[in-house]
């Protein structure tokens, strides 16, 4: 992320001596080194313990650029005094896939979390929303029926009843609804980018629930 007023629109415009704010303890510090080293640019890393301090220091003008995960940058941008003065540059300098995390050693709980996410993504694929989930029970498509608990016995596999997935969809909606509510409408990252279903040009692709 850089200030719009700097006129920088691409990381290729970075010059020797640039100062970069970030926080410690992420892969960012390593990515930053790889990035600047491979391009032969000398830089000043300013690494804070917490993200709030990074935002404050960057916003005050301590650094020319602020680097972290793209989704993180999008979220932190909204904390700036004037978010419109900053842009997230288009280049992605490393792959940082994010997902839910569970503690090691509880495979049943891990399955529940994994399939909760899968359910939300698949529900979007089949057009099941929090509004129409109940009516989908009478659908002709067996895959849809399985997703709203009208067919199959998936829940039993991890000790839940059969309408566990229906409740998820009714309460928080499918992945698209959740994204719109939490990320797009809040202005963090209105464009879904690769966070789009595989059928719509994104990379979200999940195994079928059965």
């Amino acid at each position: 992320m850089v200030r719009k007023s700097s006129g920088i629109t691409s990381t290729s415009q970075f010059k020797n001596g640039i100062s970069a704010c970030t926080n410690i303890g992420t892969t960012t510090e390593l990515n930053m080194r790889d990035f600047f080293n491979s391009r032969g640019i000398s830089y000043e890393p300013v690494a804070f313990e917490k993200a709030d301090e990074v935002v404050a220091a960057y916003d005050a003008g301590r650094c020319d650029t602020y680097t972290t995960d793209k989704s993180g940058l999008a979220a932190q941008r909204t904390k700036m005094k004037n978010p419109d003065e900053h842009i997230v540059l288009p280049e992605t300098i490393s792959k940082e896939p994010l997902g839910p995390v569970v503690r090691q050693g509880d495979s049943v709980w891990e399955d529940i979390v994994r399939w909760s996410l899968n359910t939300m993504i698949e529900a979007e694929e089949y057009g099941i929303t929090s509004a129409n989930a109940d009516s989908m029970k009478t659908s002709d498509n067996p895959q849809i029926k399985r997703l709203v608990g009208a067919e199959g016995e998936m829940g039993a596999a991890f000790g839940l009843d059969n309408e566990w997935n229906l409740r998820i969809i009714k309460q928080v909606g499918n992945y698209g609804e959740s994204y719109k509510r939490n990320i797009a409408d809040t202005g963090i990252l209105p464009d879904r980018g690769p966070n789009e279903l595989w059928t719509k040009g994104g990379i979200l692709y999940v195994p079928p629930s059965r």
Partner: protein
Amino acid sequence: MTVIAVVLVFGFFTYNAQVNMENRGIDFGYGFLSQESSFDVQFSLIEYDGSHSYFRAYLVGLLNTILVSVIGIILATILGVLVGIARLSPNFLINKFAAFYVEFFRNIPLLLQIFFWYFAALRALPLPQDAEPLLGVTFLTIKGYFVPAFIWQNFNIFFYSLVAAIIAIIVIRTHAKKVQETQGKQIPVLLISIGLIFILPLLSFLIGGVRLSFEVPVLKQLAATSFIYEGGVSLPPELIALALSLSLYTATFIAECVRAGIQGVNKGQKEAAASIGLTQNQVLKLVVMPQALRIIIPPTTNQYLNLTKNSSLAAAIAYPDLVLVFAGTALMQTGKAIEIVSITMFTYLSLSIAISLFMNWYNNKIAIQEK
């Protein structure tokens, strides 16, 4: 009994850690220290980048901790002594101002003060392109304090001349003391010392071929609105803010030690000294201070230790000290929590013991020599 209890407790924790680490498949070892660290550090006193080892990163952090502690201790001592004496001043204004300073800075948590000096001062500082030169060639900006770099020619000759001057001063001082003890004559040691420390290095310039030139920082444009100074030396604002807040905070405690020390010297001592015809300065230097120091040194040692340990708050404002570089980044990259935390704890322990030993030695030196 106590020994058994201690051994049992430690034994239990060690065993517990071993079992848990085994269950999670974490292996224990210090081999990672020689691996490539692959992260860069903003500011280091020795040559370092990500291609060096984790051990080198540890040294970088340790030296940065020592650097800010030394700067902090020197500034805090100077300020603390001045304020401590000011609190005993008969001048109402000076006296109350010193008291206000002590009460104010002593009673605000240090972390808040560090944030204040860093973020408040940071926002107040100009961007590099707007900075007015300070003292002609230095620039205080939000990105740091840029000062000219010294470029020496024949630096070793200059250095030797300085060493020679210091040795000469020590010789003259011992000689002066002997003369005073045997003949009662006083030699103006201070004047001679000042003369020596200036004249000898000056000679090295005139006839020793020593040359000094400056590399002045020059403004460089990085993008439409972002600038930086190139050339010269840059002091990062993190270092300045940390050293400033540590010394302002610790100076209040040292001031109180100094005040207590001076007040702890019996009033009769001063009156007796004055009655044998010593001047005001001589009374302070020869009678009051030697006795006051014995009271001042032990609690001040504590403050030096506190300052050194408090410097670990650096992580909050991105000053790359031991905690941020080693117990922060290195720990998270390697996952060697027990190893790194134990090394860090041991390092702080060693630093503290080193300071204590030095101060104890100094305290013994000035203690009453009983015969």
